[in-house]
């Protein structure tokens, strides 16, 4: 940054453990939020809102959920899309079958359903670790997809297994336009990101990281494995569940179980690997990278329109995308969030090396 914390003295532990201890950072974040809440809905086109920003926010939320589990608690999972599916289908059924169910309550209940399923599939984590656990969570992925395809009750007996968005209304306001849907998504994501940040900076987050870094020492300190790991699965799945419901109803509108297949789980895992494992910011950076970069490459490709065939162009986009992933991971294996942190530390001292 081109500013330093000179002259800002902390006089209490509360000030020292604030999320943004430096005044300029606080101003920047407030400005960013104001811009996102006030300026963007007015300025951005409908395509930008519903085609890019909403999926970016929703997938950030899913990546955030996975990052709590994998990045903070160290439990590798390939079931994120399954938990998203549970959230989407549960929200759908709560809206459908309970008359007068408000959307926000249905989202919470959908998230809680996903949390319950998450706890169930988190039970093996007490015995197995690492790649083996990832394989065990694959069971969630396949079972959940199968259940929602096999039993038509979940999709209200629709012949194709497709569920469609109910009428979205919050506090009596019906959300029709992309701008309104964007604002709902942004508000939910912002609040849940703040909650996640608070959790990881308190004793729960430290217990998660302790288990991740050295599980024997964590237990010797008095951390209960069972409770802490299952809580990680529950909270992570809650985040994924809410993200799944938003993905289904706010972004896509109509959805079937195939929208939450293994590829989606991989996509979310790649987001946190590229963005930064064990970082809240990383979830957003990773989602931005995976969602926005193909769009940008596509736009760049259109500048060359006519010069090369569109077939070649789309292949080239894929190649550049892959090369960029390798480049960023080679430069900093801990992800974009770490890269950002390092550049901030360097800029703080600039122009001096130390």
């Amino acid at each position, binding site marked *: 940054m081109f500013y330093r914390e000179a002259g800002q003295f902390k006089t209490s532990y509360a000030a020292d453990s604030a999320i943004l201890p430096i005044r300029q950072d606080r101003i920047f974040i407030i400005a960013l939020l104001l811009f996102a809440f006030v300026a963007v809905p007015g300025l951005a086109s409908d395509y930008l809102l519903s085609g890019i920003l909403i999926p970016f926010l929703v997938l950030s939320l899913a990546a955030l959920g996975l990052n709590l589990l994998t990045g903070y608690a160290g439990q590798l999972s390939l079931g994120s899309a399954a938990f998203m599916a549970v959230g989407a289908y549960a929200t759908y059924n709560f809206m459908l079958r309970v008359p007068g169910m408000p959307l926000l309550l249905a989202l919470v209940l959908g998230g809680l359903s996903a949390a319950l399923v998450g706890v169930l599939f988190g039970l093996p984590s007490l015995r197995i670790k690492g790649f083996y656990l990832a394989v065990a969570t694959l069971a969630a992925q396949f079972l959940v997809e199968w259940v929602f395809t096999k039993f038509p009750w979940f999709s209200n007996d629709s012949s194709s297994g497709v569920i469609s968005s109910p009428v979205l209304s919050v506090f009596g306001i019906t959300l029709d336009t992309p701008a309104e849907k964007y604002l709902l998504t942004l508000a939910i994501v912002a609040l849940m990101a703040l909650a996640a940040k608070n959790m990881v900076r*308190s004793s*729960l987050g*430290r217990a998660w990281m302790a288990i991740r870094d*050295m599980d024997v020492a964590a237990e*010797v*300190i008095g*951390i209960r494995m069972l409770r802490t790991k299952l809580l990680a699965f529950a909270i992570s799945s809650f985040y994924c569940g809410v993200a799944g419901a938003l993905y289904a109803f706010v972004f896509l509108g109509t959805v079937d179980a195939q929208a939450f297949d293994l590829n989606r789980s991989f996509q979310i895992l790649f987001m946190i690997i590229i963005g930064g494992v064990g970082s809240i910011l990383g979830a957003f950076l990773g989602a931005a990278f995976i969602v926005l970069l193909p769009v940008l490459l596509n736009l760049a490709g259109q500048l060359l329109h006519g010069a090369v065939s569109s077939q070649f162009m789309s292949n080239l986009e894929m190649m550049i995308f892959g090369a960029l992933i390798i480049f960023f991971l080679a430069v900093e294996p801990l992800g974009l969030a770490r890269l950002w942190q390092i550049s901030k530390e360097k800029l703080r001292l600039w122009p001096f090396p130390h």
Partner: protein
Amino acid sequence: MNPQHKTGDVILAAENISLSFGGVKALTDISLDVREHELLSIIGPNGAGKSSMLNVINGVYHPQQGQVTWRGKPRGAIHPHEAARMGIARTFQNIALFKGMSVLDNIMTGRNLKMHANFLQQALWWGRAQREEMAQREKVEQIIDFLEIQAIRKTPVGRLPYGLQKRVELARAIAAEPTLLLLDEPMAGMNVEEKQDMCRFILDINDAFGTTIVLIEHDMGVVMDISDRVIVLDYGKKIGDGTPHDVRNNPDVIAAYLGTRH
């Protein structure tokens, strides 16, 4: 310092402990007791069963035979986190810090048992969660002052030199305000100055907080200087138990460990 003045009742008694892994007998019929406020050292050659004994005391290993009694009550096969709740803390032979976390967070984790806010309060950073966080931070800062590691409190522990990592691990252990502190080779691999510092910290903890300490150490000079009592293990058996002076003159110990006098 005269140990008779400060040691209290037996707080932990191990009776006839036998522990084996497959065919390997780590501990054979060992009985020992630990008295409140004392500084007890366990010595012995490599593989004598010293670390295994600590692992039995804090519930990492469960002996096949024998009984551990804590404050007069027999204790079944417990989990390490239950031992922590009884007031038993420890450090490890190979540093077992949480590498991805700062010094401050490592020591704060040592106080996790003192924090009772639920995750919803923590997510909102509200009420009890915030009050607890600040109150515990104050306690942790006292420990940071005590161990003189103020300058590194925000440093990730992975970046610290070995000697400081050992000190942070000690800080994390005493953050739990244990009744019984188990230290597994706290001075291994340290130079003379670092050893002197560590000895001073161990004695200060023992004096200031009355913490009972069980210490495993290979440096005989240190052991004989600071211990109230010394237990000697060899090949999983106890061959000596007494004051440093007694142990130094015990013929079995001299033969097995300190070497014969010429």
